[in-house]
């Protein structure tokens, strides 16, 4: 046991170093993309100033801005600045809101978190249960219904689903407000009610995906010999499914759910926030795009990547506890 723990510590340390490498890669790619792009972050700002006619010497302003943001330095020094700024937690200044980006993010992240958290809980609870149910009832009508519905859930564009929900439940039936009321405290009853449609919008696609993964993982494991052993021991079917099959089936599903998080959920949350006017990170990034507020767009992209990175790391570590077969390489 001692040997196992020691090697596990080493494994976690290696994963941490590896994550740092990936984080560096993310920052570098973001930097390169920013510098490769046509135009600099200051261009639009300058154009606006020029249009306003308040400033005579645009070149002077440009020089001042370049100096202020270090844009006059050689590229590699700009790169060093960029990285060191980020390491100091300095994400820049949002031009459109006149706030430091960090302050903007700290004000708004909670809305995104609430949306994603509630949707994940909703999707995992329902998705996992119907996934197991439909696997156990394979080839019955219920199973086919689940299969078809999960196909539809995966295929329905979630931004369209959101609009349709608004059309039916808010516009036609008047059950929900058509705007998001920020005055309600988060997780309060009124707030949760307002979150109903957004959570369905974001959660239904996730739910459909999870139920499919869980179904197929459960089916895979139901065919395994150890299930027969468990039945031959005289265990109740509940125990066979929920203890023996479920534990094995969840292992691959956890990985896929994590992959989904960055692949599907973040994008979905971005769109859901825009449709329902939830002032989360997606919404502020969306506003920033049309205000040409580079710092905010960059920051939200980086946050998304970093959160993904952290979750991947946590999954890897969780795996060492969940799956005894993981080799610490």
């Amino acid at each position: 046991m001692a040997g196992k723990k020691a090697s596990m510590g080493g494994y976690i340390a290696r994963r941490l170093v590896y994550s740092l490498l990936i984080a560096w890669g993310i920052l570098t790619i973001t930097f390169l993309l920013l510098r490769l792009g046509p135009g600099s972050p200051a261009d639009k700002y300058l154009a606006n100033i020029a249009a306003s006619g308040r400033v005579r010497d645009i070149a002077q302003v440009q020089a001042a801005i370049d100096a202020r943001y270090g844009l006059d330095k050689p590229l590699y020094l700009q790169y060093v600045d960029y990285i060191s700024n980020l390491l100091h937690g300095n994400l820049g200044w949002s031009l459109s809101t006149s706030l430091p980006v960090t302050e903007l993010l700290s004000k708004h992240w909670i809305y995104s978190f609430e949306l994603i958290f509630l949707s994940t809980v909703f999707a995992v609870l329902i998705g996992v249960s119907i996934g197991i149910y439909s696997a156990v009832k394979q080839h019955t009508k219920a199973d086919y219904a689940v299969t078809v519905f999960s196909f539809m859930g995966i295929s329905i564009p979630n931004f369209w689903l959101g609009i349709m929900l608004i059309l039916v439940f808010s516009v036609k039936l008047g059950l929900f407000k058509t705007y998001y009321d920020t005055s309600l405290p988060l997780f309060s009853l009124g707030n949760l009610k307002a979150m109903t449609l957004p959570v369905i919008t974001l959660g239904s696609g996730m739910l459909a995906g999870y139920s499919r993964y869980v179904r197929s993982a459960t089916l895979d494991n139901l065919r395994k010999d150890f299930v027969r052993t468990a039945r031959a021991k005289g265990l109740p079917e509940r125990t066979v499914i929920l203890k023996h099959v479920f534990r094995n089936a969840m292992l691959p599903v956890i990985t896929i759910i994590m992959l989904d998080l960055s692949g599907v959920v973040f994008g979905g949350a971005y769109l859901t926030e825009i449709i329902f006017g939830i002032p989360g990170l997606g919404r502020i990034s969306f506003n920033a795009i049309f205000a040409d507020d580079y710092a905010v767009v960059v920051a939200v992209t980086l946050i998304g990547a970093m959160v993904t990175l952290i979750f991947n790391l946590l999954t890897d570590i969780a795996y060492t506890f969940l799956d005894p077969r993981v080799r610490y390489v």
Partner: protein
Amino acid sequence: MYKISRNLLFAIVISVIIATMALDQFALKEKLLPPLGYFYVFFSVFMLFYFVYPLYRNQRLTLYYWERTRKNKLAMLGLFFIVFLIILAIAGPFFTADPNYVNFEEKNLPPLGFTTSQSVYDRDTGSLRNAEIRGTWKHPLGTDDKGRDILAMIVSGARVSLQVGLVATFIALMIGTVIGVSSAYFGGAVDNVLMRFTDIMMTFPFFLLLVFIVFIFGADLTLIILIIGVTGWTGAARIVRSEALSLRTREFVLASRALGASDTRIIFRHLIPNVMGTLIVIATLSIPGVILAEAALSFIGLGDPTVASWGRILNAGQDNLETTWWVAVEPGIMLFLTVLSFNFLGDGLRDAFDPRSEL
């Protein structure tokens, strides 16, 4: 021997195309084709050489997979809709009105069979009055708030969606295959570098990265297609790599290596053809994601403003849900059906190619 001559022939044809394109772009005043047009030529030639021809040559295998796919009713339904969509995208624009033709006389017309009550300007009295407005045969799917025909917009949107779906997926798969196969085949440092790069790209949330890049580089359809292709290859690279890795140790590859076959020969003769089935499945299952990504970009206003994409119509429709609900409903249904069809077909193909995997 046929393989070598086919590759040679392909190289010649491609050089001719590239030469024509270079001449066209730099020397001729009147452009023959836009850059995307050349891409389609290249795409078709490639498919002809490496997809249609092998399918034709291995008729028995093709028939075998076809028979297996055909048993899946949902997959056939999907295929049927996709064929319909392709015909619609190619031939449709010749029969429908100009999707950009604005006519305020006919604005906010509901679809055929629906009526709405709207306030309209009465020319005789010069004031607004309420009137029942009926859908007409002229605009079977209705019109938007500028009087544009939605059917025409949807048909033109089908063209955009298919273009994006097919071309971007093709680019992504090419990149993914090259990276995956080289990673698996060369191993060691090459594998390490390529896979770490893949990991980095995978850590970016796909849609956020897309928004970020489009925001920086601008929204032009060709560019968007390229961006989706260049960012969307990671999954394919991973799958191709693991597939190729497992093939690498299989007997027939070992045998041909024992017989002194070269690396390139093993890659082109054994690895690529054997991951072909996987690639077809990945392609079919990637297309819906790509189509959705473009639609979502257009929906948030980051799409090419010059083309009538489904996402753009949806965006416009979202603002007037109270009055003209159909503008938001109709393109969404098309989008939904398209994605559903590709998912059905992809699922059927996967079962046909690999009955073991369920995911």
